[in-house]
C-alpha cells in the first residue's frame, strides 16, 4: 500500500566507528518513523534489520559513516557511506559466513559474516560499491507496494 505523504521524508544519522554502545540507535529511530507512518510490520522489520547490519559494519570496520534515508509513497531508499578501509573482494564478502572481523568483535556478538548477505536478503534492490583506502557505499531500496 502506498503511503499517504505529500513530500518525501528524509533523515540522516552520523555513525561513529567503535561506538558499540549506540549500535542500532539509527535503526531504532528509523523504525519509529516508519511506525508513525503505519508502514507494514514486515517491511519495517526488513528495513531496520538491513540498516542495523549496515550500522554494525560501520561501527566495526570504519572510522565513521553516515546513514541517509528517503521515504517516498512507494519506497524506502537507504544509503550508507563510510570512511573505512574498503572491501577488497566484494563477491567473497557477500558469502554467508565469510568475515574478517577480529576476535574481540565476535566476542561482542558480531562479525559472523552474515551482515552483507542479510542486507541483500532484506532489501528489494541492493547495491554495493567499495574503494580500498576510501570506504564503502551501500544503497538499498525496499518497495512499499
Amino acid at each position, binding site marked *: 500500500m502506498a503511503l499517504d505523504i505529500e513530500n518525501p521524508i528524509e533523515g540522516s544519522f552520523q555513525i561513529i566507528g567503535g561506538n*558499540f*554502545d549506540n*549500535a*542500532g*540507535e539509527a*535503526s*531504532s529511530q528509523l*523504525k519509529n518513523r516508519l511506525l508513525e507512518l503505519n508502514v507494514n*510490520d514486515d517491511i519495517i*522489520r526488513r528495513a*531496520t*534489520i538491513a540498516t*542495523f*547490519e549496515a550500522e*554494525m559494519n560501520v561501527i566495526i570496520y570504519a572510522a565513521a559513516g553516515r546513514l541517509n534515508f528517503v521515504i517516498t509513497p512507494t519506497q524506502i531508499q537507504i544509503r550508507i557511506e563510510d570512511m573505512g578501509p574498503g572491501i577488497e573482494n566484494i563477491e567473497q564478502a557477500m558469502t554467508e559466513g565469510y568475515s574478517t572481523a577480529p576476535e574481540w568483535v*565476535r566476542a*561482542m*556478538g*558480531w*562479525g*559472523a*559474516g*552474515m*551482515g552483507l*548477505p*542479510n542486507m541483500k*536478503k532484506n532489501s528489494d534492490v541492493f547495491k554495493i560499491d567499495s574503494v580500498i583506502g576510501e570506504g564503502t557505499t551501500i544503497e538499498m531500496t525496499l518497495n512499499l507496494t
Partner: protein
Amino acid sequence: MTLGEIIDILDATVITDSVDLSINIRSGCSADMMSTVMYYHTADSLLITGLSQPSVIRTAEIAGIKTIVFVLDKIPDENIIELARQKNIPLLRTSFCMYTASGRLFQAGLPSCLGK
C-alpha cells in the same frame, strides 16, 4: 506458549520490573551471535543468550523478539536493563545453561524459530 509458562519451565527470575505474563511467544532461538539472530529470526520469538551487550536489546527490538533470557544467571548491567525497559522488552535470567534452557522449552513444545 505464554511468558508465564516460560518463566515456570526455566525456573526463571524476571530482571525487568513488571512483565505481562500473558505475552504469547511462538518460537525460540539460542545464540550469542547477534548477526545470526538477525538472519534467522522470526517475529514473536524468544532469544536465549549468554551475551549481555546493549546490542542484544537493540537486536531484539529490530528483529521483533518479545523477550530475552540470560543463561547461567547472568545479570546485565543496569544501563542494559534500562534500555530494555525503554524498549518494553522483558528480561529474564535462569540458572540453566543455554543447552538445558533450550532443551526444556523445546521439550515443552516451543519450536525453533527456524522451524527445524
